[in-house]
């Protein structure tokens, strides 16, 4: 029996997706920080360096760095390496536009901190339309 935790937030992009969470406490650099062709983080000092977000529910504080953020994640969508959904804390133009052009369910402004409650490997369902994030911890 696994417990389910539900967070309530705001829709960024609609739609529903579920999958395994990939969580980082560090903001993500798009252009120059990610290889879109493999969906891998490449930033020198990033804790997820070498890790792929392909088909994961990507949980992060937000975006930083180059204005090519949306373009890199847009190309990740075309290359089939994009995350399945996005859950984040800090709204910026980079991540807003990135989520829009990735066309994946995305939620922010959650009532509890997703970085505190979600761990890498948790099963997470993101309902962008309702602004809901459901977390299932592995038994």
């Amino acid at each position: 029996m696994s417990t389910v935790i539900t967070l309530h937030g705001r829709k960024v992009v609609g739609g529903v997706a579920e999958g395994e969470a990939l969580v980082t406490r560090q903001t993500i650099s798009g252009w120059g920080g990610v290889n879109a062709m493999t969906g891998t983080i490449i930033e020198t000092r990033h804790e997820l360096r070498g890790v792929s977000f392909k088909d994961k529910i990507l949980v992060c504080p937000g975006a930083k760095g180059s204005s090519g953020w949306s373009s890199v994640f847009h190309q990740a969508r075309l290359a089939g390496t994009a995350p399945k959904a996005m859950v984040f804390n800090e709204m910026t133009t980079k991540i807003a536009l990135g989520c829009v052009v990735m066309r994946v369910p995305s939620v922010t402004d959650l009532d509890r901190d997703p970085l505190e409650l979600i761990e890498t490997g948790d099963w997470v369902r993101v309902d962008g339309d309702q602004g809901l994030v459901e977390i299932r911890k592995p038994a």
Partner: protein
Amino acid sequence: MELLVRYGEALGAERFVDTINVAGVPGTSNMFLEKYYTQPGDRYDVIYSLYDLDSDEIVQVPRVSVNSCHLQGGTDPDNWQTLGMKPEQLRISQAGEAGAARLGIKILKTCTPYLAGNVPNKGDHCAWMESSAVVYCNSVLGARTNTEGRESTSAAMITGKIPDWGFHRDEFRFASHRIDVEIPVESLMDWGMLGYYVGDVVGERIPVLMGKYGKPDLIRHKHFGAAAASSGGVEMYHLVGITPEAPTFEAAAGPNRNLETFRYGKAEQRRIYETLNSRGQDTNVDYVMLGCPHAALEQIQEICRLLDGRKINSGVRLWVFTSRAIRAVADKEGYSKIIRDAGGVLMTDTCSAIGQALPPNTKVAALDSAKQVHYLPAIMGIQAWFGSTADCINAALTGRWNGVAP
């Protein structure tokens, strides 16, 4: 407009503002997009519709409705072979330029539009890409832009609209963090390190700096802002008594009280220097890259002065990047020839990071830009050293890195 509505909703914006100055990379293709989009029709319209506007249908893209320019691109049309580009890459680049020109977009091809004739006025609502240009636009010029992306700028060029959110609004522009600068900050390298520190500690927030820094010139602003926008996501900063929205500390902070404060002293500077040099091990240097962000004419003059009629080491390549506008002047004034005679190349439109182009077999680069050190080793898998422009020219002349910590 549909893309801008989705984007505005994602941000939580309530309305749009009219923008009069847009800087982006409209319709620019690359090898990946060329292969991906196989739909029939005018190639520029296909990519602009499906990629830039994220539309599901291909439209005939109209002329732009507001002052619009194209930022840096992927290759230099005069030196593409030196950059190691394939003819196909040049063809894609030139086709993109022709398409953008057809729409009435100014082909500035630089990350420093403010050095190439696009200088907005204080208060102008802009929609710019390029994080180093955005931070310059907000902080130094007092114009207003968020860090826009390719899709939003391409849509804004046609519609003249951008979501009224973030830096377009007065209440968003006040400082949230305070940096007390406790050591003298004078040289270009000093300003680059300070910028890298500021971005590291404030992230995406807005810093106000107080303390012992001198009055920065345009180039120091350029390197400071570029660094802060790379280690963090700084889109605007205030320097008390210097930048236009910071006549006083109180004016910069506005309603914000009890700002979280960081001290920048010798230990912090030392830590940043070590961080910026953490991707260097081998002191044999085989590549020196200058001009990130694109070199101003003063920097090209300085490089020529430092070269002092000498030839660079035979094992080193020296590439200097600038805009076509600045190179036109550098050509006429003889600077391009001085660099060429020394064994280097003055190139335009791109850089090693944007173009993903290095001299053959590059292992160790020397760089005078904290921003470039942040990106180039990560993107290209090489080692890199960070130092002053003089340290870099010394490395070009000797083939050895002899940079010293400040």
